[in-house]
């Protein structure tokens, strides 16, 4: 998946830093789907084959990448942002995936289409982490 995305993004003409950031965000979104969309911790022999789609749309100035799955409804925007850690004492070991996505992208949108979740990230215009992004952790 990473290799495919890097090829597509390079073909579009995205700079290396934004490719790195979006590849990471895509990995984080996909990990969320794999870990939570279907999981109840038990193997079910009757489980149907699942489908996850990754869709890239737009061009160098408005690239959007979506992860679409047929798992349980999950709106990542509804997940509360953790407080910035402030100290090592208070820093969590996990839960960094969505904060990373929020900080490294311009926008994160969600739709439930029928039985499918579709999460879309919008590329930033540059790879700089902005103050606004930090506040959105």
């Amino acid at each position, binding site marked *: 998946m990473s290799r495919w995305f890097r090829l597509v993004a390079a073909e579009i003409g995205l700079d290396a830093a934004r490719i790195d950031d979006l590849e990471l965000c895509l990995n984080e979104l996909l990990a969320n789907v794999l870990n939570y969309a279907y999981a109840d911790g038990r193997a079910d022999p009757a489980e149907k084959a699942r489908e996850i789609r990754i869709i890239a749309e737009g061009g160098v100035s408005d690239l959007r990448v979506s992860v679409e799955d047929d798992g349980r409804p999950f709106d990542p925007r509804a997940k509360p942002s953790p407080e910035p850690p402030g*100290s090592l004492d208070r*820093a969590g070991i996990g839960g*960094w995936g969505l904060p990373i996505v929020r*900080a490294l992208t311009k926008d994160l949108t969600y739709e439930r289409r029928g039985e499918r979740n579709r999460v879309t990230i919008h590329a930033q215009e540059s790879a700089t982490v902005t103050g606004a992004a930090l506040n959105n952790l």
Partner: protein
Amino acid sequence: MELTYEDSAEGIRLIRLAGRMDVEGTHEIDLKFTSVASCQKLLVLVDMSLVEFLSSLGLGTLVRSAKAQMSRTGMLVLYSPTPAVARVLQATQIDQIVPVYYDLGEARRALVPGGVPSV
């Protein structure tokens, strides 16, 4: 993912990581990293200059060992992250609680106040 380490005469454990700290890469080194970076009180310098990719899972591995060292009154610092990795540290504000250095001498002095010979 590759992990090598060495202990210096000044008492610093230098851990060199190389590769992608994605899900697969982090799983490859997680146990060894925890073992060499967390299991006793240490002054740990993690060379990140050859880490091309840092996922949230990899970040968790680094933070867990940094917290373990803090609780043992040791210390863990990061050295020379690549731009992509630095952006993740900045985006999560981990760079404000786990020291990040780009100068090796400075990193060593942070671990051993009073200064150490340069390498």
